[in-house]
């Protein structure tokens, strides 16, 4: 049996799939098997997989397109190796990814997850790098302890799935990605796991995470679905982290505050773009979910601002004001929380 199973969920990803698969074949660590989970693609995906001609690669096909979360959950059943990685068809690795992350987990038997830095690639061009290293400087040691992981990830998801190698044990303890969270299922997975287990962290850039106009992140942002997933993560964890189950002091309140904050930021962005109704709805939802009186006041002020400056004669001040609010808000936020 090999050491690592790489799961590649794919739906009509033919444009990028070859680059993804070749980056796995090119790994310096060779003891892996690869399962492509094809979600009933209608493009050339299958012939690309077939052309790879590598005995370590196989495909499972869904008879009908299902949600990508369900596709991933079914793929998890294909892995019987000690380690599991999930690499989406439009992402790819640097050659040392597996060698590095496997060694990290071997050196730290209590950690269930190893994560590297991921380079965000926008429109084919490499931009910033993201990863847990941004919140946990590796000078503190490579092991970020349980509880602390959840605290550091509460504000936002720093870990694209491409940056992660997990011990199979992770998916025995947390058997599935949340089906109702098509956009943020991995965030919830890391938050839940990080509440009780250590993570290994490196700041080496070993994964590439593609953002493009056609991917689901972009279109979901456009129609508020992202905000709905954010709300749901908040409600799930507020329930799970209530009372003595909190992974760190004040966790339930902290996640609620992070959610309200996120919604307010989205409201300001919409305001800048002139999407008045959406901005107002998001500000109201932020108010509805804010855990402290200070944050609720901030949300109310935001909504009032949107009503005053969104339309009518004051509308031309809208853009500069929203921009200013976005810059000033983090400072106010800190003073109010």
């Amino acid at each position, binding site marked *: 049996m090999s050491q690592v199973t790489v799961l590649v969920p794919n739906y009509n990803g033919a444009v990028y799939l070859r680059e993804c698969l070749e980056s796995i074949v090119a790994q310096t660590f060779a003891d892996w098997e690869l399962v492509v989970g094809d979600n*009933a693609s209608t493009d050339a995906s299958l012939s690309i997989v077939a052309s790879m001609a590598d005995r370590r690669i196989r495909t499972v096909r*869904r*008879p*009908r*397109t*299902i*949600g990508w*979360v*369900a596709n991933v*959950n*079914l793929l*998890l*059943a*294909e892995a019987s190796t000690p380690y599991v990685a999930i690499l989406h068809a439009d992402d790819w690795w640097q050659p040392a990814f597996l060698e590095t992350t496997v060694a990290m987990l071997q050196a730290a038997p209590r950690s269930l997850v190893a994560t590297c830095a991921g380079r965000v690639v926008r429109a084919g061009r490499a931009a910033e790098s993201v990863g847990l290293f941004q919140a946990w400087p590796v000078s503190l040691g490579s092991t970020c302890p349980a509880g602390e992981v959840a605290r550091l990830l509460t504000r936002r998801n720093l870990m694209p799935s491409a940056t992660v190698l997990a011990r199979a044990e992770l998916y025995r303890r947390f*058997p*599935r990605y949340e*089906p*109702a*969270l*098509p956009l943020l299922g991995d965030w919830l997975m890391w938050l839940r796991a990080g509440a009780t287990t250590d993570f290994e962290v490196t700041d080496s850039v070993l994964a590439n995470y593609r953002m493009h106009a056609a991917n689901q992140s972009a279109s979901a942002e456009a*129609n*508020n*679905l992202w*905000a*709905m*997933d954010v*709300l*749901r993560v908040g*409600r*799930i964890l507020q*329930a799970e982290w209530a009372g003595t189950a909190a992974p760190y002091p004040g966790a339930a309140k902290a996640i609620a505050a992070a959610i309200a904050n996120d919604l307010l930021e989205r409201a300001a962005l919409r305001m800048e773009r002139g999407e008045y109704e959406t901005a107002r*709805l998001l500000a*109201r*939802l932020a*108010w*509805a*979910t804010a855990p402290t009186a200070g944050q609720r006041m901030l949300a109310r002020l935001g909504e009032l601002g949107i009503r005053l400056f969104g339309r009518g004669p004051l509308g031309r001040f809208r853009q500069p004001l929203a921009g200013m609010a976005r810059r000033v808000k983090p400072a106010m936020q800190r003073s109010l929380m």
Partner: protein
Amino acid sequence: MSVTILMPAYNGAAFLARSLKSISEQTYRDWRVFVGDDGSTDDSHAVIARSGLPRLTLRHNARNIGWAQTVNLLLADVDTEYVAVLHQDDWWEPSFLATVTAMMDRSPASVLAVTAARVVHPSRPDAVWGLHQGWPTEQGSTCPSSVAVSLLLPADPIRCPAVLARTELYRKYSFDESLPYACDWLMWLRAAVMGSVEVSAEVLANYQLHEASQTTSLTRASLTTIDLLRMIEVLRTEWAGGREPVKDAIGKLTAGITDEILADAGLKIEGGDLAGAEVQLRFARAIAPSIRQSVLGLAGHHGISLLRLPLMASLSTPITRLGRRLW
């Protein structure tokens, strides 16, 4: 073969015999069954084998992925004209399939046929739900598309076992897997936009409502709310740019959902769960499209602050009962 019955099953050994028996007792015989076992760990398989039901195909999911996902996978192999989804804990009266297929055969423009459903709950008297409550069938069984949409916008009176659908509905749409508590409502709305709906007032389906434990129902309450909010956003996108099927459809949907959240808040106050009620009232106020609903939300909110005072606490139940009756 005319009808494919899809049954998503998960640890339902206690119920499966009843639902499978109700299939075998149908007076209409031209059906087959796909059971999708969603990773059961009980003896569901033995119960299915014992049922001896003919024309039954059993499929397994390698992992538990959810009922909507299971149904979506089963839909891949449907090649009949009609599809029914029967959950493991629901069951039919013997004439269900005969009635709904006859209505659909008569009316080629209809996408759905819906009967009345008895809602069975262990600690409450049975209630009957159905589209006949908004479309009295004396006007004929065919409810036109725009009327059906209007009836389905403020609330969902249709229970899943009471539905037969033309397969073309599921060629166009899958159940929305990100809405575990609202994907059937979304499906019926989309169906009503596609065509007319056949309505029967006969009670031919039984829908089992379970007694939920306190903690899961708490969590579920706020997750149901988020499902409803998400459904509004899904339809807002789908109907953008003048594609609303009836005038102010999103407004009507939002008003209905606000009422539902307010009603749930009322129930929570009665049950003594003030914190839960407060969350619900906040969401209701955040989306309320009408002044009436905003005022109700606001009043509820201040009412809760009052009820938190020690003297008032004893009065909470009679006051909220009165409040619920008034609105």
